[in-house]
């Protein structure tokens, strides 16, 4: 490429004043990793308390703060920003664009996050403690009965939402406007497609969350009665609004993960993705349906039966496009010339465990059965199968897959595979027993439990500790790769990988595609 390239700025200003999509992507990824460690350490406190029945280590209020902040930090601080970081790094390189469409706003979206999460974590040290009402912050727990720190939580959600909206607008503008000549919509890599659809979801539902927390703020400080029946409002209104955001939110988390897996499975099967078109349509259908199913999180609040039935059938319908995707991944591997490097292992791990999580979701969608499962450890097991083994496994796969391209060095394959096997086994040890204790009636968000759940909980805690520790191995592998990994220079790091990102030099230069490539 031309000689007029500018390298990165020197020193701290490279990061503070960044406009380069790769630098901003890197910051997003490191930020989300640090949040992953923080949120993970909260999970360790939870599991340590639950290691045995009885009150062991922390008082119940602190336990509630741990469950709340674990959820909030993992969802808004770890998983979402990690995929935004990946989008920043990969989308311009995948569609042949010189950068994101709005580079300065891109940096703004990032720099909103660190102070926001610092504030959120600091609520733990405030009078009355941090948020202790669960990550779903149902009113009136989060309004009438909340500690004063809830105000900081509300503004924290506002800022995180603003960051997400601006990030998504940037992604939409990039994908719609910056594709290289010849890169038609139906030639875009699946990761770009899933992110485009995710960005639409984000722009549509983050303002809904902003509305929900604004009503909370008004109820707490200005005497309105949105969530108070005494004034003619309704606490259940909060749940409707929250889940109208919350259900698309879970697809916001999982769709980019689908995209990653749709890149990796073909690469290591050495076959093109099976049913590309149907993958696109399935993703879009999932996104559309996600707006019609929110109340399946609220079967037990006393909705009219017609509502329960509608939301039950609409929810079951989502199994169809999701099934299309799962079968397409399996069919991609069918008779492929497969190898099992670390990214592929994590992708297959994703496929198996996400499918289990999907099936438990189908069980939960059955309204009469949900009356038993509701708010039990079965739900906890279900969403950790889709959040951890779904979103996080796919994120891990993505890091192993693209890290050599990013830094021009190869990670340690043995260590990567070890990381996978420890993660895969310990994840199942941690979360599979939770299905059983949940079905037997153990409620979620409690620091103590009945004696008959003791064995499974101990097993679960051991699994969680091993899983948590094994992620440090991942961090170590990534850092040692960046610092001292074996240098590589092949443009195409993986033999079977396809796409524009594999046509640029390794490591990827600071600026790529300043002149757009021609896509045939």
């Amino acid at each position, binding site marked *: 490429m031309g000689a007029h390239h500018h390298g990165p700025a020197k020193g701290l200003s490279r990061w503070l*004043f960044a406009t380069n999509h790769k630098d901003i992507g890197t910051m997003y990824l490191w930020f989300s990793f640090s949040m992953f460690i923080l949120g993970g350490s909260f999970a360790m406190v939870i599991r340590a308390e639950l290691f045995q029945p009885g009150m062991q280590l922390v008082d119940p209020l602190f336990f509630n703060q741990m469950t709340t902040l674990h959820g909030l930090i993992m969802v808004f601080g770890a998983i979402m920003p990690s995929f935004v970081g990946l989008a920043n790094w990969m989308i311009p390189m995948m569609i042949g664009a010189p950068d994101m469409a709005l580079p300065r706003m891109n940096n703004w979206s990032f720099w909103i996050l660190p102070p926001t999460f610092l504030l959120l974590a600091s609520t733990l040290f405030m009078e009355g403690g941090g948020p202790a009402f669960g990550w779903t912050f149902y009113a009136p727990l989060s309004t009438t009965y909340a500690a004063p720190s809830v105000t900081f939580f509300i503004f924290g959600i506002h800022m995180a939402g603003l960051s997400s909206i601006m990030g998504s607008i940037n992604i939409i503008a990039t994908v719609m406007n910056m594709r290289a000549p010849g890169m038609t919509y139906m030639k875009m890599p699946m990761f770009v497609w899933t992110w485009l659809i995710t960005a639409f979801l984000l722009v549509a539902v983050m303002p809904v969350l902003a509305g929900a927390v604004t009503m909370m703020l008004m109820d707490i400080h200005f005497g309105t009665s949105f969530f*108070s029946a005494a004034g003619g409002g309704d606490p259940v209104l909060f749940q409707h609004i929250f889940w109208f955001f919350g259900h698309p939110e879970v697809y916001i988390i999982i769709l980019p993960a689908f995209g990653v897996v749709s890149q990796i499975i073909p690469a290591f099967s050495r076959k093109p993705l099976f049913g590309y078109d149907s993958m696109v349509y399935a993703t879009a259908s999932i996104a559309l349906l996600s707006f019609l199913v929110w109340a399946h999180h609220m079967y037990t609040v006393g909705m009219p039966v017609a509502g329960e039935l509608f939301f039950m059938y609409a929810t079951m319908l989502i199994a169809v496009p999701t099934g299309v995707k799962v079968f397409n991944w399996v069919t991609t591997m069918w008779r492929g010339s497969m190898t099992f490097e670390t990214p592929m292992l994590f992708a297959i791990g994703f496929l198996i465990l996400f499918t289990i999580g999907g099936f438990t979701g189908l069980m939960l969608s059955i309204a009469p059965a949900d009356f038993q499962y509701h708010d039990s450890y079965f739900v906890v097991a279900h969403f950790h199968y889709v959040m951890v083994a779904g979103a996080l496994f796919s994120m891990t796969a993505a890091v192993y897959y693209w890290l050599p391209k990013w830094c021009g060095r190869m990670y340690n394959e043995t260590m990567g595979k070890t990381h996978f096997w420890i993660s895969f086994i310990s994840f199942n040890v941690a979360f599979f027993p939770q299905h059983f204790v949940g079905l037997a009636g153990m409620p979620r968000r409690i620091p103590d439990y009945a004696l008959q759940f003791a064995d499974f909980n101990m097993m679960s805690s051991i699994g969680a500790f091993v899983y948590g520790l094994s992620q440090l191995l991942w961090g170590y592998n990534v850092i040692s790769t960046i610092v001292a990994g074996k240098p590589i220079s092949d443009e195409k790091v993986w033999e079977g990988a396809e796409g524009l990102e594999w046509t640029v030099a390794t490591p990827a230069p600071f600026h790529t595609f300043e002149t757009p490539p021609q896509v045939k």
Partner: protein
Amino acid sequence: MTPQTSTEFEKYYVPEKSRLALCAATGLFLSLFGAANVMNDMTYGDPSVETNSWTIFLCGLFFFLATLFGWFRTTIKENRAGLSSAQMKKSYALGMFWFIFSEVMFFFVFFSALFYVRNLVGPWLSGEGDGGRMNGLLWPGFEYTWPMAITPQEAMGGAASQPIANNGDFVSFEKSMAISEASAWWKWLPLWNTIILVSSSVTVHIAHSGLLADNKRKFNLWLGISVLLGMIFVALQALEYYEAYAHYGLTLNSGIYGSTFFMLTGFHGFHVIIGMTMLLVQWLRSVRAGHFSAEDHFGFEASSWYWHFVDVVWVLLFLFVYVL
């Protein structure tokens, strides 16, 4: 990789590095952190203790607004220096469009809350459907009307007489915003506000057509009129709020009618002020600095989209908050 011929491809401008984003993030954080402290002082604080919450809030807000001013200034300068390619302008247009869409979704929540309360919660609280027991046990005597003239709490004899489910004093209004007598329609403020705001949308459109015909005089005149109409609207809204608080007994505490009324009209009014400021800036740019031509006027166009959006929200508000 085959580079395109230079006639097809304009280089996309990627700024080298910029302080704007970090300053904006800092300003935003400080202002919201300050605002949270102000509210907590108000609700939980000891009035005799001096805090610096307002100082943090105002400094943060000033810093934030100054940064935004500088940011737009930089972007305008870059555009006038010819750095914005046609492709980049499309990025801006997409950005504005999807930003307005996110605003639509924000109003959607408050409208949804209104519909949910009016069609489901109200009837349920008064004993319809599955809510029969709730009415009998919790709110005996509550009857649902809209506008909700008596809150469930009042039906029970006020906050003091009701031991459960109280988290405030919800005393309903004496007079709602609905039209009192149809024959005196010309004395009804919301109707005039509707006429004013809809006209301002038309005048913005006239200004746009003037600009497209390269008639800057027409543009300046009609854009100026639009800004004036916007100001009149805001003034009348302020008058309406004053009336509500001073004479109607209608406040944020007036149960769900007051809550939905003030939140919907309040957020709308706030957006009118933003939109009006945007139009005013475009007017100043045109009158004082001679910006904009028939081909290059995205700043104005984006502001006018925003203005039309604010107008549409008002029409819905008029229909669902005032008329029906």
